[in-house]
């Protein structure tokens, strides 16, 4: 009998699960059972309440009899226009929600309409009060002034405004208007310039061609010069955009100057235009021969996308050109015949175009605008500071 004992041990159940604990567990389960029972009772009460929601059914107008609802989940919903449908409570709720949405949207639209009407009434009210106060509406016809007259007129304003610190708001507004006007005018002029430039280029072509025909020996050099020149033109063209406003200002200041002065001015300008052009052209000519540094600077300028930066540079350039101008004739005589000719051709062209300028400013002023910026800008800047 020892063996079975060796195979297993005997332990009393009471040692593993004490009696008290087991009894406690029983009690706990019974407690929870009772709780659930109570809950069930409550739910049943709810159900009963729901079923007997109406415990007095109207019988005619005067009488009631006791009754209760049996099918509490069966609704007969009025859809409108005498149509009814059998629905469950959930479906009914959905129907009612949809109806509420429709009504809400209607209310919203009505509110919006009311708002509009209120705004209208307030507007009319204000106009009425304004009319009662005797407010006046002032309207002035906008007359397109003659461009020269406008410029001379606006000139005075423009001249004054920087110097007079007490220039009021009116003037500022004036300037704004003027600025817009000027810009529009500039756009026009720019278009004209573009058109004229194309013509000019063709003219140059012919001129250059002529020079080439004169000097057939060095065709290639002439071409190179022409290329350089066209480059320069494009540079000028680029310049015009940032300078547009200022150049127009300078034009106006010019207008103020008396006629002799004008003539002088233009002479000077021609000179300067020549200078800048000659400088650049000469540089172009020299590029192959001498002033490598200059040409490099030139190229850098042409490449530089920042126009604002280019402005001062060009001025310097013009100055440098003027300084180097005296040397130029001597130097130009040195280089090849054809290059000289091409260069002179380019010079001739500027004066030709400048001269018509004083007579008709609005006239197709193509080259003057190209040549002017180099000088007028500097002048204007000086005035400003």
């Amino acid at each position, binding site marked *: 009998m020892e063996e079975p004992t060796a195979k297993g041990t005997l332990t009393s159940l009471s040692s593993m699960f004490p009696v008290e604990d087991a009894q406690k567990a029983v009690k706990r389960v019974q407690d929870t059972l009772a709780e659930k029972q109570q809950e069930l009772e409550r739910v049943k009460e709810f159900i009963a309440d729901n079923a007997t929601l109406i415990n007095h059914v109207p019988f005619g107008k005067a009488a009631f009899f006791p009754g209760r609802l049996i099918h509490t989940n069966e609704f*007969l919903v009025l*859809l*409108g*226009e*005498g*149509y*009814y*449908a*059998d*629905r469950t409570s959930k479906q009914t709720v959905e*129907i009612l929600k*949809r*109806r509420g949405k*429709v009504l809400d949207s209607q209310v919203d639209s009505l509110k919006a309409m009311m708002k509009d009407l209120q705004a209208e009434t307030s507007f009319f009210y204000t106009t009425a009060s304004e009319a009662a106060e005797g407010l006046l509406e002032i309207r002035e016809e906008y007359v397109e002034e003659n461009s020269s007259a406008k410029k001379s007129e606006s000139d005075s304003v423009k001249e004054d405004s920087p110097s007079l610190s007490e220039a009021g708001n009116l003037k500022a507004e004036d300037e704004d208007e003027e600025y817009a006007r000027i810009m529009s005018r500039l756009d026009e002029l720019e278009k004209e310039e573009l058109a004229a430039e194309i013509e000019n280029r063709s003219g140059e072509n012919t001129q250059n061609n002529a020079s080439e025909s004169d000097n057939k020996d060095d065709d290639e050099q002439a071409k190179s010069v022409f290329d350089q020149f066209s480059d320069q033109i494009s540079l000028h063209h680029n310049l015009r955009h940032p300078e547009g406003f200022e150049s127009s200002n300078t034009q106006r200041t010019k207008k103020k100057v008396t006629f002799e002065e004008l003539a002088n001015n233009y002479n000077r300008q021609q000179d300067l235009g020549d200078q800048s052009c000659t400088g650049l052209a000469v540089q172009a000519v020299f590029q192959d021969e001498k002033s490598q540094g200059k040409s490099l600077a030139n190229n850098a300028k042409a490449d530089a996308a920042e126009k604002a930066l280019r402005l001062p540079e060009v001025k310097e350039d013009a100055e440098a050109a003027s300084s180097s101008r005296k040397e130029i004739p001597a130097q130009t005589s040195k280089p090849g015949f054809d290059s000289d000719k091409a260069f002179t051709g380019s010079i001739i062209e500027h004066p030709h175009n400048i001269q018509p300028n004083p007579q008709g400013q609005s006239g197709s002023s193509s080259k003057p605008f190209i040549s002017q910026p180099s000088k007028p800008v500097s002048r204007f800047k000086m005035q400003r500071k």
Partner: protein
Amino acid sequence: MGSSAALRELQRELENKANDLSKLQKDIAKNHQVRKKYTIQLGENELVLKELGLLNEGANVYKLIGPVLVNQDLAEANANVRKRIDYISAELKRLDATLQDLEEKQNSKKEAILKVQQRIQSLQAAKAKA
């Protein structure tokens, strides 16, 4: 005497025209009311159509005819509502046309009345001078 007779005539005319105008205005008001009713019905019918569309097949639909609820087929109810909507929109169009017509008439009547009034005034002024 002739002028006073003419004046009387004019006044009678004015009265007649005023009566006509008031009748027209009444008509317009009635028309407006009918139109309003129809628009409300149209909205209701559209709502019903929407709900009927949302119902699943086999749902019980009833129509209240007088005091009795009559069971109706869903498709039939749908078709009926559609027909009703068509009818109401046609009616609304017709009412709009008649309303416009009436308003034009009203305006012309008003103008006529104004003219008659002016004539009366001028006659009275002439009389006062004389």
